[in-house]
């Protein structure tokens, strides 16, 4: 998908993350395929959105990238070099270059530390800079995320919710990461605050030429923040492509139903039409065929037997047997 001239900054090759399901007496009763055979790549400066409903595996994918889960199979490459394999500790230098931001990034601040100390800490661990050098960096980044200098002497509980998120972002940015994984960066925020947080992420993207992966259940959020979108269903990528294409001309029936389910203020009511029936099945219960077939309006008999592969045409990929170019 990427041009040969610019090698992808991040590359996932057939990445899987499975969890054992324990039954009676801890015996292995099955396998939960949270992430199953996912391949994608990300060029420098690009923003990729990963969208899916609960249970689609989008968060597990993000956590596997962030080094919180070990992949069961497959390779993650950062600038061409493999960084995550099964059961190997990720080197410190890699962790600084690829950062994972939790849902409530403000909550990951130490409650008993001033903001200054929290922001210095990553630099103490990852660099051998002098105190003055670190302080200069901390002030620069705090300014970039819109925190005033006097905020640095405050404790997390003295900051508002929005300021805490800014502080959490600053903590990620002091290390100058090449790639940031945002996991539901605005969940639980009011719309008015969400918009300011998204504007902040847009601002730092421009400022630092940031490459990021944004995971969200909200199609509107990733749609407004990302160049490309990947739609996940039951651990698989069912569609991937440029945001405008995926939202404007969805190729997978699941993407279509997601797009059609979004309320459009001022437009016709979505509830006037029929909503998509059913809910996703439990990932462990799927054995064969397309995972979406239980809800699919256009499924055929073949869909129960054949596992659709991701077919990419004109940078727009879809995993559906029924799709024709």
């Amino acid at each position, binding site marked *: 998908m990427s041009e040969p001239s610019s090698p992808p900054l991040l590359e996932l090759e057939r990445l899987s993350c499975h969890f054992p399901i324990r039954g009676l007496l801890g015996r292995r009763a099955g396998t939960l395929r949270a992430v199953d055979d996912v391949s994608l790549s990300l060029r420098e400066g690009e923003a990729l959105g990963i969208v899916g409903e609960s249970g689609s595996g989008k968060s597990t994918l993000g956590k596997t990238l962030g080094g919180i889960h070990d992949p069961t199979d497959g390779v993650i490459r950062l600038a061409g070099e493999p960084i995550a394999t099964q059961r190997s500790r990720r080197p410190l230098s890699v962790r600084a270059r690829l950062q994972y931001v939790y849902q409530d990034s403000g909550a990951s601040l130490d409650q008993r530390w001033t903001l200054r100390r929290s922001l210095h800490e990553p630099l103490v661990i990852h660099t051998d800079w002098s105190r003055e050098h670190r302080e200069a960096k901390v002030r620069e980044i705090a300014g970039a995320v819109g925190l005033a200098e006097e905020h640095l002497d405050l404790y997390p509980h003295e900051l508002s919710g929005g300021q805490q998120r800014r502080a959490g972002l600053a903590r990620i940015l002091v290390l100058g990461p090449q790639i940031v994984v945002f996991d539901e960066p605005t969940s639980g925020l*009011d719309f008015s605050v*969400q918009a*300011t947080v998204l504007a902040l992420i847009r601002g730092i993207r421009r400022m630092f030429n940031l490459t990021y992966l944004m995971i969200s259940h909200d*199609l509107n959020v990733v749609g407004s923040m990302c160049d490309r979108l990947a739609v996940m269903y039951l651990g698989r990528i069912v569609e991937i492509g440029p945001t405008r294409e995926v939202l404007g001309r969805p190729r997978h029936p699941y993407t279509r139903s997601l797009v059609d*389910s979004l309320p459009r*203020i001022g437009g016709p009511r979505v509830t006037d039409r029929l909503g*998509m029936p059913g809910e996703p099945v439990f990932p462990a219960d799927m054995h064969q065929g397309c995972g979406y077939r239980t809800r699919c309006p256009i499924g055929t008999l073949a869909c129960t037997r054949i596992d659709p592969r991701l077919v990419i045409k004109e940078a727009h990929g879809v995993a559906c047997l029924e799709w024709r170019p």
Partner: protein
Amino acid sequence: MTALLEIRDLCLAFRTDKGPAQVLDGVDLTVAPGEIVGLVGESGSGKTSLARAILGALPVPQAEIASGRIRLDGVDMLRGGKAAESLRGRVVTFVPQDPLDSFNPLFRVGTQLADIMRYRAPPAKEGRFGNARHARETAILEMLDAVQLPQSRALLDRYPHQLSGGQRQRVMLAMALLPQPRMIIADEPTAALDVTVQVQILGLLRRIAAERGVAILFTTHDLGAAWEICDRIIVMYAGQIAEILPRTAFFAKSRHPYTRMLLASLPEPGREAIGISGESASPLSPPPGCRFHPRCPMASDICRKARPLPSRSEDGHLVACHHPWAAASSPAHV
């Protein structure tokens, strides 16, 4: 049409260690039978407290209703005593945000539905051989059918944690409908659901209101969900009503700066949402005058001094603002 629910000048405060927190300030609203009214606001706007005040479910020692009245079906809900008590859970029922918190995890779904039938619902028609239990079961299965739950008999034997999020919310709706209420108060009923399931539940709420003539008071922070199902939307900010919009004036003709800025905050592919700077007003020390003035770009001296009085136009559109947008102008984002 006479109102089913009528709230006049409701002022509610919570006693806290730091002094009284004014959660609701002079709220006026009515809901007609069969009407779906959306109560839209961000966190701290007082929408959930308002819903709880109607249900009489406010925390007892802390909550203090300073003034105002709530009348439901002609009964004074605040001072009605036994008469008001007999309406709660019967004439007005409740659908919570996260149904898992509201089920008893130790009892099967069927048992919990049967309890509602026994203690809250009007007596069922005599069943086969005059068996009341059989009649109750028939009524429950009919209701599960009405909320579009297939294979409902198998469902009755399950425990709440064995149901999916959408199924739980449907069972909750069935429980709210069994007493044959005239009004359902739904507190963010779709906030915890995926978008494809949200559409199903919203469609179901609309059908219930249309087919059974049940009024629904629907609190949400999601303007999109409100747009989907509401006949009227009440926009609240910091315990006060900012604007009431009828369906015909829905959003495109919104006049309050807060409503417009909230709309401009919605993320949308291909557009950069703007957001509202600053923090929501603290209920402990609300700003004088209009509570939105510290965040409002239109604010002037009068906004800092005097609370704007609501002005109502013929179509029922009400706005409480000293500098409302002209009725004809269309908001920037449309």
